[in-house]
């Protein structure tokens, strides 16, 4: 009844957010429009009957990952991006290429699609069924992902931590406003 209008509304919001991500020059604006894209995608998942995926989309993507992005943007004090010669070439070649490719794909999909339609609500997709599948048939991949997450956490901590030399200077109370580049390189070699 309401599914097609809802699909169109949220799809339009989604595409508008994605295009806004491309148009905006400041990374924080891009990040916020990416949140809009992810939230409306969660609504699309709900329309498809995937309740668990919709909840995880909001919690993990729109919540955790985007907070991480916004945090890093603010931490690095990222300003507006400047255009260079390479970006102009990419703009001139990329936009028409992507537009042509997208139109071709959409035309093919719409032309060769039969009356096949996604039956809303026909799929038994409550979290209970998903959990049974996840902890039965996909138990080994599920456990492996926990190791992957652990390694990712350790890698992030190691990569983002400061080099030893600067930490030592900080402890001694010496000024560390602008660490010299060669010192950073030396610290990198020490580690």
């Amino acid at each position: 009844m309401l599914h097609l209008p809802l699909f169109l509304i949220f799809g339009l919001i989604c595409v508008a957010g994605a295009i806004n991500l491309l148009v905006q020059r400041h990374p924080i604006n891009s990040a916020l429009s990416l949140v809009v894209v992810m939230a409306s995608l969660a609504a699309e998942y709900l329309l498809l009957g995937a309740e668990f995926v919709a909840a995880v989309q909001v919690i993990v993507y729109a919540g955790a990952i985007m907070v991480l992005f916004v945090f890093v943007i603010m931490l690095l004090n990222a300003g507006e991006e400047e255009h260079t010669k390479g970006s102009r070439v990419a703009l001139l070649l990329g936009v028409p290429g992507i537009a042509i490719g997208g139109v071709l794909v959409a035309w093919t999909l719409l032309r060769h699609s039969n009356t096949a339609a996604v039956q809303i609500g026909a799929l038994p997709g409550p979290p209970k069924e998903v959990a049974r599948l996840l902890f039965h048939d996909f138990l080994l991949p599920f456990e492996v992902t926990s190791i992957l997450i652990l390694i990712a956490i350790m890698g992030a901590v190691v990569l983002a931590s400061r080099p030893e030399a600067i930490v030592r200077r900080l402890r001694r109370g010496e000024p560390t406003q602008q660490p010299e580049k060669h010192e950073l390189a030396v610290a990198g070699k020490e580690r």
Partner: protein
Amino acid sequence: MGNLSNVPLSYYLVLSGILFACGVLGFLIKRNIITVFMSIELMLNGVNLSFVAFAAHWHHLSGQIFVFFVMVVAAAEAAVGLAIIIAVYRTRETLNVDQVNLLKL
């Protein structure tokens, strides 16, 4: 369930393709390394949508499980990638991908 409540599968695939194309375009034209990274997330989201649409189409829940795994990998990738961006910014003091063309200083 009447016929009106059906949304054709191709509509979902077209939406997913548009999102993926926007991600590729952002990857090409953006010069800020964080925005390039966000474009990758956009591509992953487009693929996730087609996974869920096919799962609903074939009445098979495996697609949703794959989306779950893609999200896990995306979270790990975001953590490590943003840490690398912080490290790059600390040594080079720029976020422009055109100026980050060497692996070591």
